[in-house]
């Protein structure tokens, strides 16, 4: 159990939320106390921590708010929920998270890039344990939509417990949200939680 105090007195919004978030993401931190001196910061830090799956207890001393932020008893916060995702994770280590921001691997010929990306997913589908999560951003989202060359590989991994998340903003931007064929629509908050989780993150750009 590692406790940390985050003093946000004198800081304007949104800094208290950012500092609290950073502290919670640090290795090994299990509880923190955020100190704020205004009611907006108190409400915003509380809103953030509760929505991230933490328990918040507050006390006021001389107009200063002390927010005690802890892992919820019973329920696990999102960061740890990610840890439990791959049921097949080997005890030796956790399966990695892949951040995929392109539908064509590497720079150079786009044709070659597509061959390579297919080859990558075929390889990933054969690995044991399978990846904990596949996070698709930017043109990566084309891989989870209708017309993808790697759908069967994705289906195999998804079936084995791999989380398949596609960035909602990206689907909207390319106007293909209705073509999503596998996994779920996600947001930067959830994606960031995966990236800052305990697993190794591998970027495919």
């Amino acid at each position, binding site marked *: 159990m590692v406790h940390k105090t985050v003093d946000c007195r004198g800081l304007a*919004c*949104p800094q208290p*939320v*950012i500092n609290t*978030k950073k502290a919670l993401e640090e290795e090994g931190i299990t509880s923190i106390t955020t100190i704020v001196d*205004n*009611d*907006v910061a108190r*409400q*915003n*830090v*509380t*809103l*953030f*921590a*509760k*929505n*991230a799956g933490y328990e918040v207890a507050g006390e006021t001393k001389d107009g200063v708010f002390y927010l005690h932020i802890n892992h919820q008893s019973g329920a696990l916060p999102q960061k740890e929920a990610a840890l439990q995702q791959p049921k097949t994770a080997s005890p030796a280590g956790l399966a990695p998270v892949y951040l995929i921001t392109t539908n064509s691997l590497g720079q150079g010929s786009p044709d070659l890039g597509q061959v390579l990306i297919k080859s990558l997913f075929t390889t990933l589908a054969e690995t044991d344990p399978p990846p904990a999560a596949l996070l698709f951003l930017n043109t990566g989202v084309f891989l989870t939509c209708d017309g993808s060359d790697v759908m069967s590989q994705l289906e195999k991994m998804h079936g084995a417990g791999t989380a398949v998340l596609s960035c*909602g*903003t*990206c689907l*909207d*931007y390319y106007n293909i949200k209705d073509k999503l064929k596998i996994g779920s629509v996600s*947001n*930067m*908050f959830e994606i*960031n939680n995966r990236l800052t989780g305990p697993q190794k993150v591998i970027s495919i750009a």
Partner: protein
Amino acid sequence: MGPHTLSQVLRHIPILNDPRLLVGLDTSDDAAVYKLSDDQALIQTVDFFTPMVDDPYLYGQIAAANALSDIYAMGGKPLLALNIVCFPDCLPHTVLEEILRGGAEKVKEAGGIIAGGHTVRDAEPKYGLSVTGLAKPGQITANTGARAGDVLVLTKPLGTGIIINGIKAKLVSEAAASEAARSMSALNKPASEAMLRHGAGACTDITGFGLLGHASEMAEASGVTLEIDFSALPLLPETMDMARMGLIPGGAYNNREYLRDRVKLDEKLKPEEQMLLFDPQTSGGLLLSIPAPGAEKVVGELAEQGVRAAIIGRVLPREEKLIRVLADARC
């Protein structure tokens, strides 16, 4: 200034009754309207604020679109605009040039003319416009014209306050930030023209007091209650992600405090969803009260012009509360 403080201060200003003043201080409206003749009314407004984005050109565009919006909300056309500038010595002049260029381009797009202005030396930059517009006295879309049976249309997505906060926290994606910038710098001109074509009874623009703050001004002035369907509200991308993370501007909490006794929120709404309803908007959309057939046409015609408008609720006879918000009217 928050709505509570403002109403306290304005209590002490004497209200002059002149039959030519069609819209004045007493109904918390967007602009003053003065009748010149039976077919012409003058609309006068002023609006300026501190920068909410880093790019000076964009800031100029947004401040001008925001000031011009008050004319559009009354059903008028802008004629003349005067620049209002506060600017520090320590910043390069090129920054001010960019701000003014952004403003001038918006006024030109609106069909108006910048005819002058005034500058003051100040520690923090501020920019805006005083705008004079014209309308037909019979077509003024004041706050007083909402009628039970009308529906409510909102002509821009909500969330600018929360997104600006998220940008400060460096958590908003580039795509979402540029979508918000596009929305804030867009004129309410197409929305205003569409509502005049299809018979809106009342209109206000959504700015610093948030959706519920401005909606409650309309409800109060018209003697009605407005029912808003949360699930129908158009939102800027990533707004709810940022709201869930507690990136709520302080102004939203002020607005909620002021409106506490006047609004009834569905218990099913999550805390961050409630706060969105009070989120202060920069250069927000128009809120229209309009009969349903006209509303469908307004939304359809605006969609063709790339404007994201939506029917977000309806007007009811006056109940105890000015506003009632449902989590999802379809349930």
